[in-house]
């Protein structure tokens, strides 16, 4: 579904190798997590494989089509949700989704059904005919996701998809990811949410300083699942026993501090706003 071989990217006027000889392959029907710290090379890799950035060496194939040699066919099989959810804000939600549907040649009947279904799913029915400029952060993210799915892509690429979404929408997107993969499609997404990756992904890759350091199964491998956080901390060079133990304990225990006890008359102390 997606085959990346020896991908290398160096930004112009920079000595640093942003992506250094990365190779991996995604199988049909899997959800693949792409992990790494900020600046590790996740977004650069995603931008290369979506055709946004040219790269220096290596090859990228989407559904058998080379992104450099056959970009139109490769892009036709892909849907992309950017991390900054930028969309043409002067258009209405419906105009934007229809615009994207036209680019992917989605027939009228099919798009009608999908727009209706997605609008209901993401609770955007009332906002579809309003200009996107008036949308909230989460609504923009949802319209991006709708547009990326309007042609039912075989490969769905998401860069930090859950940021700024309400729990209901996050749950809907997770459900949709699973549904999408159940049809034999593939989901590739980057995230900082280790807990979500652990629960959702079949496989995961961890990048650090532009290099793919580890790639392993999570589905059916309880040991990898249990050790995902530790692996991530060790690979990204942020492992420190005390901090890791704190993190692990925070994951399993309640972290809210105890409320101060209010003995005596509440009206005298607790309920009064501070004068300062």
């Amino acid at each position: 579904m997606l085959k990346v071989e020896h991908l290398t990217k160096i930004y112009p006027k920079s000595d640093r190798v942003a992506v250094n000889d990365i190779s991996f392959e995604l199988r049909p029907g899997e959800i693949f997590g792409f992990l790494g710290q900020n600046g590790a090379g996740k977004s650069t890799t995603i931008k290369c494989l979506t055709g946004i950035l040219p790269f220096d060496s290596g090859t990228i194939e989407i559904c058998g089509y080379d992104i450099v040699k056959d970009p139109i066919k490769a892009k036709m099989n892909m849907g992309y949700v950017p991390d900054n959810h930028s969309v043409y804000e002067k258009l209405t939600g419906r105009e934007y989704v229809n615009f994207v549907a036209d680019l992917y040649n989605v027939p009228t009947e099919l798009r009608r059904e999908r727009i209706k279904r997605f609008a209901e799913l993401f609770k955007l029915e009332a906002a579809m005919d309003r200009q996107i400029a008036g949308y909230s952060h989460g609504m923009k993210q949802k319209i991006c996701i709708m547009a990326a799915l309007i042609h039912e892509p075989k490969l769905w690429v998401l860069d930090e998809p859950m940021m700024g979404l309400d729990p209901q929408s996050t749950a809907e997107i997770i459900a949709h990811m699973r549904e999408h993969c159940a049809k034999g499609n593939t989901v590739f997404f980057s995230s900082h949410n280790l807990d979500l990756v652990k629960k959702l992904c079949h496989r995961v890759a961890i990048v650090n300083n532009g290099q793919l350091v580890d790639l392993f199964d999570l589905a059916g491998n309880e040991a990898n699942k249990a050790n995902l956080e530790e692996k991530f901390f060790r690979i990204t060079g942020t492992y420190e026993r005390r901090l890791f133990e704190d993190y692990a304990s925070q994951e399993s225990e309640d972290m809210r501090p105890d409320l101060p006890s209010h003995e005596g008359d509440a009206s005298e102390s607790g309920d009064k706003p501070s004068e300062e």
Partner: protein
Amino acid sequence: MKSDISITRVKTLFKLDLKSRFGTTHKRGVKYRISQCMNALFFLAIYAVLILGMYYLAKIFVERSQMRLEFLTLISFATMIIAAVISTGTIVKNLYQNGDNEMLLRFPVSGKEILLAKSIYCFLHNIIVCFLLMFPIYVTFGAVTNAPAGDYFAYIGIILLSSLVTFAVGNILAVPAVKLINIFKNKFVVVLILTIIIVCGVFVAYLLALSHILTYLRDSRQGIFSADMIIRYKAFLNGAYPFKWYAELVSGRRLGTLNAGGLALRFLYIFLMTAALSVAAYFITSRAYYKTILYGIASGKSTVSRKVKDKQMPVVQTLLTKEFYLILRSFNYSFEYLAMACAAPIMVFFCNRLAATMGTDSVGAAIMPGITIMVIIIFITVTVSFASTCISREGNCFYMTKVMPVSFKVQILTKFILYSVVATISVLLTCLVTGIFYTTDAGDKALSAVDMAAIWGISEILVISLTSLSMAVDIKWPTFNVSGDGELVSANKNVAIMLVVGFFFAIAFGAVVMVTNFIPLQVGDTLLSSQGNLGNIYLILTAVSLILLAGSLSALFVKLDKRYNKIMW
């Protein structure tokens, strides 16, 4: 009564405002400083030209027409209206529309403190505007009338008094102005039509006034300074209160129209009027401000609603529609492109008529074809330069152009078609309007049908050439410097480059046609041109335009994929 305004907080807010406008944490390079100096020089040059114009106007009023007090009244009238309009705009922008209102309200500061801090900025801004606007004109008047030194101090005093009134009027007008803006905010077509009418109106009024002044300079018996007109001016300006009070306060005594008692009375009138307007401004602003900004914040996200059907469109059509909506639904873009393209035929016609009057009077009617082609190419350049931000305007959505399964050639071709079609229609209408007038008796048959057909043909070729060149320039050097609403922060250097290129062709083509219509051009035994016979010259210019067309189309489309791919986002 205990005041809830803290001077310290007001000072802090005011300083914050100044820092956000003028402060910088970056060390500016030499390039930046040079560009700042060039901007300052350009501003000074324009300012000097305006002052020179004012000097001649003062001479006409004072020396030729003996209308000293009337001139001062006219100064007060014109400058105070301009200052009030600028003040209203500044107040609307800073007090009611500035995006920091929402942020400031989160701080532990009151609405009154925000209002006061911003009002201080607006007030100081207004004083500077009034000085820049009025002081040179008063000084010019003083120089022309040999005013004593004391009068110059009076000018400063009168400017300060004028700035108080204009600030108060600005505050009063700002509230209904904001309400009007909110009503028309999402009515894009209405705003576009109004913009076209205003642009044409202001431009035509300016050129007509300039034309009358030129007529007067040629012949004082005609034009806006004829004896009949002067009587009318006097009648109007003598009743132009309260502006006449300011004029009398400045020079009433010296000009012998006012005694000491009269002077005191005029001062009292102005003082009372200023006080009344200031009190009204205070009450209106203090009552409306908080409500208006809260409404602005609440309705800031109110946007256009439009129902469309979910229907498939061909790729090129959908790209064209998207591009058109992005331009139409932005006030800045629709003004820069659609309004300019629609207004061009009228602007060219009047500009051409004025240039033709001046040129014909000084060197003869043979100058007409040259002037016409020059003026048309100048306006083409202004309209087409919009295409030099075709990639930059994508801003944060540029990634879409890389991700969509549509070749870069088709995407660029679509933009090219949109810009070319609009500019081509604009040029066609421009040539029709100009041609109908100048090839008939109405325009003294100053142009032949051949002239007009050739000018139209060359202009259309240049439209396509300059459009493709503009787009090629932006593909080479895009700048994705966009504001919060996704629009370009300001015109980038590509626009400047294209203006220079376009103006070069305008001057070069215009000069060639002008010169060859006066001086016969002979190569060997062949006479290439003579007066009224420019066929060969037009052919040469057409050939040059075609070469430019081939070059610019190559610059845009050859190896487009490779160049487009290189654009970093």
